[in-house]
């Protein structure tokens, strides 16, 4: 028992002092048995967007009608609280060097994640994208096809986000920092990160796109594909994702087979 306690204490010390993210905010792929690139040439990237709280709040309120439960000021305060908490932790603070997207999720409890994506979240992304970029297109290649198709991925901690949603409006920050990770590696990595980190799934990632519809709009280079790794498909080796197609935004599914690609990334969510 003493040995175990000692080991745990050592692990705690390590986790407090060892950086978990590189200088660009990428989550370091440490100790993984699943596929992830150890080194990156930083080719598929998201341009760091400026946070415009007023614009994000307006779009999120348009989508989820949360103004009665949460003001813009409260939104900003809660996001700042999340960011400050991370900034004060030596091992975590480098994640702030990367892309971060504040978002709000409504208080809601869903029987079927896929149905909620079909009826609430994907139409809301479509609306936010269309309003921001009327010349471009949001294309949902799985339109009305998600009923019964999605569940929380085991060990992804994504259940934490859904449980919070069940009790209150949720404020969070989305970090697409698992660059060049396979889907299984993203799940594996989250289990060794501090407890406040959850793997992003459908609602939080969609809310991030509502908050910043331009997240994957990149004119000078290609952005990565963003998996919803916090969710598992009922089909083996299939997962869902957002992806740019030129100036357009796509939602789609594809077979991943546990493989890694330079182009593939997943996101982490931290909620207040």
């Amino acid at each position: 028992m003493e040995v175990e306690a000692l080991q745990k204490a050592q692990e705690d010390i390590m986790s407090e002092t060892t950086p978990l993210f590189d200088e660009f905010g990428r989550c370091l792929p440490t100790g993984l048995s699943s596929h992830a690139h150890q080194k990156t040439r930083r080719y598929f990237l998201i341009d760091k967007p400026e946070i415009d709280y007023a614009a994000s709040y307006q779009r999120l309120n348009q989508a989820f009608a949360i103004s009665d439960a949460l003001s813009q000021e409260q939104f900003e305060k809660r996001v700042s609280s999340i960011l400050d908490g991370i900034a004060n932790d030596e091992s975590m603070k480098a994640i702030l060097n990367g892309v971060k997207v504040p978002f709000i999720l409504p208080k809601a409890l869903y029987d079927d994640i896929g149905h909620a994506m079909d009826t609430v979240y994907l139409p809301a992304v479509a609306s936010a994208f269309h309003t921001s970029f009327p010349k471009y297109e949001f294309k949902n290649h799985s339109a009305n096809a998600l009923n019964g198709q999605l569940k929380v991925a085991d060990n992804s901690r994504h259940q934490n986000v859904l449980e919070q949603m069940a009790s209150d409006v949720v404020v969070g920050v989305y970090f697409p920092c698992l660059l060049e990770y396979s889907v299984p590696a993203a799940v594996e990595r989250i289990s060794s990160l501090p407890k406040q980190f959850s793997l992003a799934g459908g609602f939080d990632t969609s809310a991030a796109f509502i908050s910043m519809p331009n997240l994957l709009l990149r004119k000078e280079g290609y952005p990565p594909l963003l998996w919803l790794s916090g969710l598992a498909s009922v089909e083996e080796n299939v997962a869902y994702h957002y992806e740019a197609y030129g100036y357009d935004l796509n939602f789609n599914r594809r077979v991943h087979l546990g493989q890694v690609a330079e182009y593939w990334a997943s996101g982490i969510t931290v909620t207040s």
Partner: protein
Amino acid sequence: MLNLAAEQSDNVLSADELAKREGLRARKPYVAEKLANIYSMEERGEISPIIRLEKSYLCNFQCTHCSAEYYMDRHLEKVLHVKEDRQQIDLENIRDISRQADELGLARFVITGGEPLVMRDLDDVVAAIDPDKHYVILDTNGWFLDDAKAQHLKSIGVEKIQLSLDSIVEEEHDEFRNKKGSYKRVMRAIDATIGAGLNLLLSTVLIRGQPKTQKFLDLCQFATDKGVGLYVSYAKPTGSCTDHPEFVIEKEDADVLRQLEKDYNVFTHMTPSYGSHKGCITVKGIITVTSSGEVTPCPYIDFSIGNLFETPLKEVLDRGMRNPWLGPHRPDCLIGEDPKFIKIHTEKTAGATHLPLPWGKGFSDNDSLTD
């Protein structure tokens, strides 16, 4: 090349496309079945690349942007003063490639070159591929494609013609192709192809800045009005284009073209189609077999992933899919857009006389994205 996923799924098919598929099912049920299986193969993580077959590089044109120029005897002998001394594929080899491809579920061959219609043994090549087992496409400049030739091609089992058209302006096309009269021949070939009941695809090379020009829009409109797809190939910094780096596109060109796909019947090798979103199709969607039996992962990459005289097709494909540049999903064109890979390719091929570079000299199992 053809609209890669057009044969993959019957989802969201136009009436015209559906009729074509039903026609193929009636005439060539085995081929139709294989094409229909491609979608499920992809769902299992298997690949079904089109095989471009370059048996001969003989050509009656000398185009400004030709990717095969450096493979041609005229270049080897007149420019480099060397001979092609490598073993050349023959009809028996093609029969064997066809058999291996069939065993892997592959379903499509493009006969290219060079100019296929100057090949004396073209009919034998089509027969060796076996049009009852594979969907056969012919990639031609159209110079010799009149009514009689189109009907003949249909009669020997060719299903589709891919015809090069580089501008809707006659003088520009002829200048780009370095062949006066070639535009008129393309127009004749379009009518001949349609008249013979062959499927038709127009192909054009896209150079930097072109997608925003009215002339390019006119070309897109022409194809759309004809009811024919316009396949757009980015100019790559290889072959004759090595001397024209200014042709190589920028991301904006690719993105403008992606927008044009909504308004015109125009597409690239990376355009999603019928549920298939491959991105760059190296190995996954296409390979080229050169006259020396080398397999390249794309028509414009002069690095081999294996030689079919030495290595079975399956092993060559597996090797390609393991390669970090070639196997993983990516949205951009590796040889047309990735500066690091273009640099590696340019440096390794500089001074080479016999292309492609064999396995181990260009690509190898030690390749890394970050080294």
